[in-house]
């Protein structure tokens, strides 16, 4: 029997027994639904990490030259930590030397951060995320201003105490006031507010709007880097290839400057968004495995239901199988008929499951910060799984049907 006839027959059988067919495919449907939902959520988390987390916190195509890494994958051993602490600090002349040697077209900015108390006459003191920086920082971080301006080259050069603040600073310290031109005191020193950054939202519940950004040469430096060093230099390249090149150049420059012989490892760190994302990639991988276990159980149950129903169908249609055999159906024709029927049922379940899974993903992205994004591969995968479950579940019943003795089958009513 040609494949197309088998499919037509299967569709016909399903149409005749709508309710029974539906109950048969519920298991697969639920399995696939969870599969799509879980994959979408996990993928959404991944996208969230890469775009929002890496983009907001670290910047796209950036690396940060630091004394030692800020974000660590797993635990740092005692010995490692001691090595970190023994490393020489980075100073402004190191930074300038690296900057002078970077390939053209790179954006860079000093980045020194600390959480410190700030105060105004209008509100209680509160911790802010104080950042001392220069150069292309706003550009690299893609901070758009809601109002005001960023500090100029001259202001950065001469270290004027000017401040660009985040939304939360505005809301807390200047309730129903225009902050522009007003003052915010950090560690006792007043800064003039010149710009307000648009709302950045939060990352894992940590607000990204507590920013208080001042020129690196302003007094804020004493707060962010009390030892007179520089916490890090953030460098952004136009592309991944350029990023690799810039990192290579930086490594050579730093090693040369510190006179490191080839056998000695780097005594500085270059942190990329990749190294930070590695941690989350691992987390995501685990989530994916656990997330898959749930749908897998659904699919196993679904397969069992289909197998059971197909065995019943074989028993019910024994006479039909006998007739078909008498009329010239070969074993392969009979087994194909039942396999295709099982696979079609299962595919139907998968299709409904995909639709429901997409619905769940949509709901999750609406009500939670996770932008559950549907991976196109997961739909293909779900269909494949659906067909696979059907074939696996239908295999034994189909084999049983194909091996029925036509005489015995015909005798059955």
């Amino acid at each position: 029997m040609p494949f197309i006839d088998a499919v037509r027959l299967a569709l016909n059988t399903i149409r005749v027994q709508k309710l029974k067919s539906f109950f048969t495919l519920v298991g697969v449907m639920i399995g696939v639904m969870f599969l799509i939902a879980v994959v979408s959520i996990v993928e959404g988390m991944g996208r969230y990490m890469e775009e929002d987390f890496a983009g907001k916190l670290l910047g796209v195509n950036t690396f940060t030259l630091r004394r030692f890494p800020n974000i660590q994958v797993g635990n740092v051993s005692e010995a490692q930590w001691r090595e970190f602490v023994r490393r020489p600090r980075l100073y402004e002349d190191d930074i300038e030397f690296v900057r002078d040697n970077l390939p053209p077209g790179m954006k860079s900015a000093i980045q020194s951060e600390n959480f410190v108390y700030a105060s105004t006459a209008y509100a209680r003191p509160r911790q802010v995320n104080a950042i001392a920086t220069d150069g292309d920082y706003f550009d690299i971080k893609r901070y758009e201003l809601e109002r005001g301006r960023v500090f100029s080259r001259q202001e950065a050069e001469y270290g004027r105490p000017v401040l660009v603040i985040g939304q939360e600073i505005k809301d807390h310290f200047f309730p129903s006031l225009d902050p522009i031109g007003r003052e915010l005191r950090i560690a006792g020193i007043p800064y003039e507010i010149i710009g307000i950054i648009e709302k950045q939202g939060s990352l894992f519940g940590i607000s990204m709007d507590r920013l208080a950004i001042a020129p690196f040469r302003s007094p804020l430096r004493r707060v962010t880097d009390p030892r007179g060093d520089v916490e890090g230099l953030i460098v952004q390249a136009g592309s991944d290839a350029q990023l690799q090149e810039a990192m290579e150049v930086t490594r050579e420059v730093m090693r040369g400057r510190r006179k490191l012989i080839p056998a000695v490892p780097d005594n500085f760190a270059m942190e990329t968004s990749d190294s930070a994302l590695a941690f989350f990639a691992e987390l995501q991988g685990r989530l994916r495995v656990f997330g898959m276990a749930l749908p897998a159980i659904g699919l196993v149950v679904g397969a069992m239901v289909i197998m059971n129903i197909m065995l019943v169908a074989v028993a019910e249609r024994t006479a039909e199988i006998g007739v078909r055999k008498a009329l010239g159906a070969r074993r392969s024709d009979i087994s194909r008929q039942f396999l295709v029927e099982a696979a079609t049922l299962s595919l139907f379940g998968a299709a409904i499951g995909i639709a429901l899974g997409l619905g769940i993903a949509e709901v999750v992205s609406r009500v939670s910060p996770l932008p559950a994004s549907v991976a196109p591969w997961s739909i293909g995968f779900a269909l494949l799984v659906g067909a696979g479950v059907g074939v696996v579940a239908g295999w034994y019943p189909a084999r049983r049907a194909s091996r029925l003795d036509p005489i015995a089958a015909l005798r059955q009513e």
Partner: protein
Amino acid sequence: MSTSTTEPGLTVTAERRAVTSQQGATPDKDWVIVTRGLKRNYDMGGEIVRALRGVDVAIRRNEYVAIMGPSGSGKSTLMNVIGCLDTPNEGEYWLNGQLVSKMSDDDLARVRNKEIGFVFQTFNLLPRASALHNVELPLVYAGISSSERKKRAQEALERVQLGDRVHHRPNELSGGQRQRVAIARALVNRPSILLADEPTGNLDSATSTEIMTIFQALSDEGQTVIMVTHEPDIAAHADRVIVLRDGLISNDGPSSTVIPAYTSGHGG
């Protein structure tokens, strides 16, 4: 009984003996069925039932044959073997010049599809399918295209005067109509033999006559018809009757001579 009728019968019988005794030789093209020493045993829970104990049958093309016998005589087993649903333990079965007794399952399926048209006592139509689709079935397994199938199934149904019932389901048809659908289905692939198992067993006498008329017409058109029955008045429609008893042929000849002997034998 005049000599003019018995003599040709006798010569045919002699010829049959000759055909069935040549072990291993491919029979002449005229013989659509030749069996040589067919034996079929069943193992019924340790007890061996010898359903066929060496049956030699030779049937010419265009013969109209009835196989008779009381229950347990082996006539069903013989029909199953002739219908390629079952294979003998011993002996040869030549169908249309092919030695089918040693064929694999799939080859037997192909032979059933091409050479044999079954008509069953209980019609055995697919209940959820239309008359047209039921008739199409053998063509589906013959791998014939959908449009060609529809055309030929329609023709076959028209041949049994059911051209206006093609989209009816079996439960919307009378018993006689159902059996006519089954006959159309049996004929649609132009088989070498039409094999009917108690074709009138579930029908009233008027409908039975109707079915027998169709069989007679088919036989007149050149179709080889073999039917298994235990009813002498149905068997009487056939030209030749083979009587089985205890797994052996007990009588074989024109219906006009065999049936009276069979009924009197029954009567005691």
